[in-house]
Structure formats: structure tokens, C-alpha cells
């Protein structure tokens, strides 16, 4: 940076910072303030932590928290298992693979609400293709209401989330795989390692950074996901798929309790930070070994 450019830097980042402050920082702070008020549409009554106490004492919150955790951890876990397998399959740079890589990412191109519509049809109890195939091959004896039956709704929602997300995670992991030096594999083979040992002691450690980044992103994206579930089940049947984001929407725009919804949002935000911190701290402590 040149000496006479001291103020030029501000010219470059100025518009960005100002805009972000206006469209992001200001609403966030406003939301935080809102959470301390109670309202009927217009926020008028200051209640301090009243909203928060109400939420924490409401079993609906804990139910939503549990559903959110199950949904998030299952989806992310499956993303990584399927993604890892996909990445390993796509690792050599053949022409077939470069086409396959582009094709396989298609689920991620489709918007969440359209994905939901797509799968609602697949899951249709009477005419959907899934029930037809499963009964035909004898996996199930009668049609399952995938989205209407409280026993299956959460599972179905997880399946859709996994379908949409695993290719992206797979490609991120692929990026990590491609960066592993061939020499490490060669050395391991010379030492007589089998495939599983190679995977455990060469592949995985090399992927640590990519996994941390991908895990953080995926946890957040999944935990905040609202479109998918809202269009698939609206949180139902009953409360079977009512994750916290769905609760926030319900609280704020169906019950019209904006202050309470704001408090929920702050809590969600805190939960997210806790998760991300766990992931990041975990990766840092490993690095010290």
C-alpha cells in the first residue's frame, strides 16, 4: 500500500460497510431490542426478559429444540457419509467423472420450496412413486403417509434435506481429496497399508480443514433451514417437524407475537453460535497434537 493512499482504502470499503450496517447490523440490533418488548402487532410494553422466560418455560420450545437437533445432526451426518462416498467415487479426473460431478449437483440448484413440492409428490400416500415402488418390492405392506404420519414425518423431511445437500458436501470434500499429495498414498502403499488404513491415516487427517469448514457451513445452513419444512409439512403433523425456525415463523406471523418471535430468534442465534464454537474449538484443539 502506497503512502498517499491512506484514505483511498476507505473509499473502497466505505460503500460496503455503510450498506451492510444499514441492511444487516441495524435490523439485527433492532431485533435484539424487539425481544424485550411484548406486543399486539405494535411493540408497546417493555417486559425485560419476560419473553425469554415464557419461552423457556414452554415445552413447545424444548420440543422444537429437540426436533431441530435431530433434524440437523441426522441430516448433516448423512450429508457427510454420503458426501464422502461420493467424493471418493468422483476422485479420479476422468471425463466421465467431470460430467458426473456437474450432473450430481443438480439437486442443489433447485430452490428449497420447489424441492419440497417435488418430494411432496414423490411422498404422496396414494399415488406417489415411493409407496408404489416400496409395496411392489415388498418393503412395506401398505401405503405409508410419509409426511402425514407423525412417526415418519421427521424421517421424510430428513431424507429430502439429505437429498438436496449431499452433492454439495460431496464436492467440497472432493476438493479436499484432490489436494492430497499422491506421494502420501504411495508411501502408505509401500508400507503395506490396506484401503481402510489409508483412509483412516492418510485421507481423513488431510481432510480435517475442509471437513471443519464444510461441517460449520452445513450445520448452520441446515439449522436455519425453513423453506423445506414449511412447504413439506408446515411443521406438522402436530408438532412432529416443528423446528425452531418454523416456530419463529409461527410465533411471529401466525400468532403475531413479534416480540416473542424476536426472542426465539435470539435464542436460535445463541444455539447456532454454541454449535459453531464446538466445531471450531474442536478443530483447533486437534491441531495442537
Amino acid at each position: 500500500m502506497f503512502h498517499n493512499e491512506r484514505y483511498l482504502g476507505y473509499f473502497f470499503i466505505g460503500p460496503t460497510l455503510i450498506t451492510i450496517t444499514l441492511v444487516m447490523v441495524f435490523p439485527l440490533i433492532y431485533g435484539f431490542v424487539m425481544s424485550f418488548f411484548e406486543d399486539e402487532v405494535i411493540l408497546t410494553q417493555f417486559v425485560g426478559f419476560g419473553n425469554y422466560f415464557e419461552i423457556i418455560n414452554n415445552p413447545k420450545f424444548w420440543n422444537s429444540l429437540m426436533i431441530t437437533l435431530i433434524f440437523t445432526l441426522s441430516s448433516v451426518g448423512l450429508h457427510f457419509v454420503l458426501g464422502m462416498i461420493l467424493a471418493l467415487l468422483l476422485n479420479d479426473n476422468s471425463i466421465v467423472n467431470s460430467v458426473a460431478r456437474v450432473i450430481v449437483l443438480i439437486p442443489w440448484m433447485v430452490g428449497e420450496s420447489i424441492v419440497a413440492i417435488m418430494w411432496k409428490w414423490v411422498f404422496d400416500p396414494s399415488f406417489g412413486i415411493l409407496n408404489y415402488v416400496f409395496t411392489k418390492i415388498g418393503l412395506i405392506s401398505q401405503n405409508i403417509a410419509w409426511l402425514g404420519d407423525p412417526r415418519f414425518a421427521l424421517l421424510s423431511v430428513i431424507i429430502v434435506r439429505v437429498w438436496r445437500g449431499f452433492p454439495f458436501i460431496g464436492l467440497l470434500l472432493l476438493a479436499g481429496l484432490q489436494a492430497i499429495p499422491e506421494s502420501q498414498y504411495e508411501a502408505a502403499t509401500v508400507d503395506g497399508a490396506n484401503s481402510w488404513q489409508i483412509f483412516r491415516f492418510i485421507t481423513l487427517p488431510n481432510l480435517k480443514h475442509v471437513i471443519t469448514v464444510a461441517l460449520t457451513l452445513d450445520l448452520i445452513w441446515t439449522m436455519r433451514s425453513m423453506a423445506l419444512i414449511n412447504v413439506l409439512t408446515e411443521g406438522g403433523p402436530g408438532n412432529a417437524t416443528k423446528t425452531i425456525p418454523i416456530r419463529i415463523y409461527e410465533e411471529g406471523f401466525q400468532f403475531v407475537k413479534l416480540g416473542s418471535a424476536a426472542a426465539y430468534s435470539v435464542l436460535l442465534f445463541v444455539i447456532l453460535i454454541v454449535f459453531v464454537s464446538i466445531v471450531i474449538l474442536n478443530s483447533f484443539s486437534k491441531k495442537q497434537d
Partner: protein
Amino acid sequence: MEKSKLNLKPIFLRTFKTLLLLIFIFFAIFPVFWMFTTSIRLNRDVFSIPPLLWPSHPTLEPYFEVIKERPIGTYFLNTLIVAITTISFSAPVGALGAYGFSRFKFKGSGLILGFILATQMFPYVVIVVPYFQVLASLKLLDTYQGLIIAYTSFCLPFITWMLKGFFDAIPRELDEAAMIDGCSRIQAFIRVILPISLPGLAATIIFAFLVAWNHYVFALVLAQSPDKMLLSVGIPTLMGQFAFPWNLLMAAGFMAILPPIIMYSFLGKYLVKGLTTGAMKG
């Protein structure tokens, strides 16, 4: 080891791997394929038992019908306007900001950049509640302006962050060489750095456009009147109380994903290349 043993194992492995890959691809593609084939069926083919893989009488009738049923054209236009306007603002501002962060040192820039990264991670539901309140009081609900402001909140940080990564990868010597040749810093940026970073720039803008096109939460809360509704929200409204017109729904859905799919078919390989060479190293 006998030669015959060595020769068979890799072939089995290759076949197994190819088969597994095909299964993955089938799993990824089938629902989209199923959506398309349903969208070209008449009702009797939609509800036929057993379901047909391909309709006996393919027809584009559902597409015409759904356009009569819902203002799909309006949804389309609205989404296009909001996405393009937001990106048209966010891209230049973001590029300037990214360049500034890349080439200049500021006090606390680490903190600011960390914050910008963190904004990528906010749940939209967290920010939509105050947004609703603020836009309502400014009478900006159900307006393009309101939507664009809201969409900027996630487009701008994203573009800034991604572009900074791309600019960082371009050596500073290039800027300095240009400035020694008589360019001002701004000219060096426009004439040298921008052209070089064009692939990254294009990938980022396409990515951002896709995110904006598919966005749901802000659209749901901030644009509820039918004339300003966006695609991602408008199409699910076809799902009535009882039986859904599946072929119409699928037709509408397919129209909604057409722009992303078309973009993707031309530019997908660049996006994938960017992803797999670690553009998202964070």
C-alpha cells in the same frame, strides 16, 4: 501372487465403483426427472395405477393451465426484478469492498471480515422479524424496494467475501506494476484486476443470482400480496386444501427451476471447478 488374481480385482472394483456412482446419480436426478414427466401428463396419467414412467399422451397442457390458474408470469417477473436489481447493486459495491479489504490494511479489518463471514451464517428467520417491523413502519412491505433492501443483506456480504478470496489470489505485483506505469489505484483495479478475476467474478455473480432466485424466507414474509409475490412463495400456493393438481404444480415448479437449470447447464462446469479447487477454503 498369481497374475490372474491381480487382473480380476481392479476390474471388479471399477465396476462396483461405477455402479455405485450410477446409483448416486440416479438418486440425485430421479426426483427432478419425475417432476418433469409429471408436468407433461393429463390428469388420468397423473393418477394412473400403476404409475407410468412416461405419460401415454405427453402434453404441454398443464403449463398453459397453470399459467391461467396463477400469475406465474408475474411471479417470474418479480423474482427477476428483485434478483437482478439486488445483484446489480451488490456486485459493484461488493467488488470495491473486496478489493479494499484485499489490498489495504485497516485497524480491525480482521474483526470486520470475521463479521462479514458471520453474516453468511445468520438464519434468515432471525433477521426477518425485525425486517418485517421496520419495513412495515416505512410502508415498504409488498414493494420491490423493500425486497431489494432485504435481499441485499445477504447478497452483499456474500459477494464481498467471495470476491475478496479471488482478489487475494491475484498477486499485488500486478497492481503495483500498473500503478508504476501511471495508473491510479482505481484504474489499476478496473483495468487490470477486474479483467483477470473475471472467471471468479462470473462464478460469484451466478452463485449469488441463484441464491437470490431461490430465496424463500424474506419473500414469504415481506411480499404477501399476489402482485408482488415471488416464484418461490407463489408456486406452493397452488397446494390447496385437498387434492393437489400435481401436473400443474410440477409444471409450475419446472418453470421456476428453468432459469437456474439453464444457467447451470452452461456454467455449471465452472462452478464445479471452482468448488472442487477449493474456492470455498474459508
